[in-house]
């Protein structure tokens, strides 16, 4: 039954890559990037997500907030199928990109992850050189063949990640020799080097000092011109500062999803208001 639905929707929705229109948030003119419908997820017997519905818009920052353990990371991992790596996970519902369900059998998770990159909570550069960290994935995906193209791509990615000036003289030192904030920007450079559509960030600044945090927040603001960013954050101010849309998760459900201004000035639900004002969480 599911696959029939998939067929039908695939023909009714057309790819943004082919230039044809996709669903828009008509009020503000934002195009849809990822549409999630009735998404539920179980770790064994434990249900971590309950009927999540959300439309994520292109070239915007969407922040996921909520008390810890409410399923933010789990949800984020649904978008690039990183949950596949966890045993005993069962997923129901649809996560659509370009009208295709990312969980459908025909979907290649490698192809999906090329289009949906990820940055983790703890910076995890490969224990290789700074250059290799960035060049590895594009080379693997055959995005560059000539050495010059590769050098150029590495420079561009590092520039976009705001790291180039700091590392241009030591590209062949190990990525792990950088400071925490630099490492995280290296991970961002690594993610954007394959030109994804979406970048997922799971509490990207929670392991960083305030200055590095501010740098990354500025960076997110710049990157959203090119990429759709979905970020998890524990920090209300951060969400308010960087996000265009904010989703409030609680016990595996989205309680409220709104544009950030409304969410923080005039939340529609009592729970979200309590959380935002620090009454729980």
């Amino acid at each position: 039954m599911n696959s029939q639905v998939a067929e039908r929707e695939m023909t009714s929705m057309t790819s943004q890559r082919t230039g044809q229109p996709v669903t828009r948030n008509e009020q503000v003119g934002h195009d849809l990037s990822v549409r999630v419908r009735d998404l539920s997820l179980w770790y064994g017997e434990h249900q971590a997500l309950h009927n999540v519905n959300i439309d994520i818009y292109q070239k915007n920052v969407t922040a996921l907030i909520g008390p810890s353990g409410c399923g933010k990371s789990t949800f984020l991992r649904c978008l690039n199928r990183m949950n596949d790596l966890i045993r005993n996970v069962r997923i129901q519902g649809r996560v659509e990109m370009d009208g295709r369900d990312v969980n459908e059998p025909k979907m290649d998770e490698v192809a999906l992850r090329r289009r949906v990159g990820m940055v983790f909570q703890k910076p995890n550069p490969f224990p290789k050189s700074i250059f290799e960290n960035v060049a590895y994935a594009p080379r693997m995906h055959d995005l560059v063949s000539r050495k010059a193209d590769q050098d150029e791509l590495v420079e561009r990615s590092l520039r976009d990640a705001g790291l180039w000036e700091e590392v241009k003289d030591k590209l062949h030192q190990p990525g792990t020799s950088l400071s925490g904030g630099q490492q995280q920007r290296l991970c961002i450079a690594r993610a954007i080097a394959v030109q994804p559509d979406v970048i997922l960030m799971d509490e990207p600044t929670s392991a960083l000092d305030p200055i590095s945090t501010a740098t990354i927040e500025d960076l997110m603001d710049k990157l959203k011109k090119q990429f759709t960013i979905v970020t998890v954050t524990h920090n209300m101010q951060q969400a308010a500062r960087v996000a265009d849309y904010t989703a409030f998760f609680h016990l595996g459900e989205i309680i409220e999803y709104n544009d950030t201004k409304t969410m923080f000035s005039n939340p529609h639900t009592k729970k979200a208001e309590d959380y935002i004002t620090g009454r729980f969480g």
Partner: protein
Amino acid sequence: MSHSFDEISAQLKRRHRKSARLKWMSMASLGIALLFLVVFFADMLNKGLPAFQQAYVQVEVDYNEDAETMGRAALDPEIASLVSRSFERLIPGMIRDDADLLGTTETRWVLTNSQVDQYLKGHRNELSDDEKAAIDERVEDGQVDMKFNTTFFSQGDSKMAERAGIMAAAVGTIMTMLVTLAVSFPIGVMTAIYLEEFAPDNRFTQAIEININNLAAIPSILFGLLGLAVFINFFGVPRSSPLVGGLTLALMTLPVIIISTRAALRSVPDSIRQGAFAVGCSRWQVVRDHVLPLALPGIMTGSIIGLAQAMGETAPLIIVGMVAFIPDVSASFTEAATVLPAQVFTWAGEPERAFVEKTAGGILVLLAVLIFMNATAVMLRKKFERRW
């Protein structure tokens, strides 16, 4: 109610006493262990070092026609009783190989027989008092002397102790280990990679895992029986050959390599795998490009230790016929061969006194190699140790 420092100290006293006692007991255990080690090494060195020296005698070799059939004829009869028979037996061949030699004489240093050697080393021997006096005289004259025993390293086994060496066994060990490594390393590493990185976590893989762990604890002689049944009787691999020995030891080494490789793979932090998956690596790319390079030192360390274990193994090789009298270096993997520990075992069974030092000498060489291998393993581990 709060307590003063003195009250608390009084309570703590007993605890401190206990921990002090425990500390002394463990240090005493360590001391005893070290003592055993020192005694063992001292004994081995004491017995084995003489094997690296051998008595040589200076003789006039007269390559006459009689010597072409009976080597003894080339030597002064008085001195011939001191010379190793192994040298006498070489003379006819030397004349046959080099026609110019006939009719010439030559002064050279040759091996004495083991009786002379043992006498000079102060061990029990069967020489008469006259013979001893004659030897003493020649020692005075500098015609009999102890020299570094190259024969021990350049020759295979011999029934004549002065001629017996470890060369054939050393080559046999190298060939056997090559087979063991060639078989157990790739199979072990691939198995571990499969189990650790690819296999689903189900009853079947759990059963395999338990069995592999048990395999490492099986008495090694059983692997010999298995090797006999499977490789020799079923597949018809030649008995006593480095091939069958290597295969048998590979069975034994396999679980060690699998277990250590899995440990090495597991020590690679998951965040690396996550990062690699997130940029779109396939499972194999994650393993090949990211996990394996980091796990390699650990894998090498485990493999070296597994190999060192196999190298010291004798029991399974007895069963597949590698404990044998092998005078010549084997030229191929299917010819009869022996290995160092088996050679030591063979010598240990020889009744002649001169073989005692050969036995200990062989053990010293084996120990030196094993210590070298283990040191390499430790160094590898130290050098590439990483903190995450």
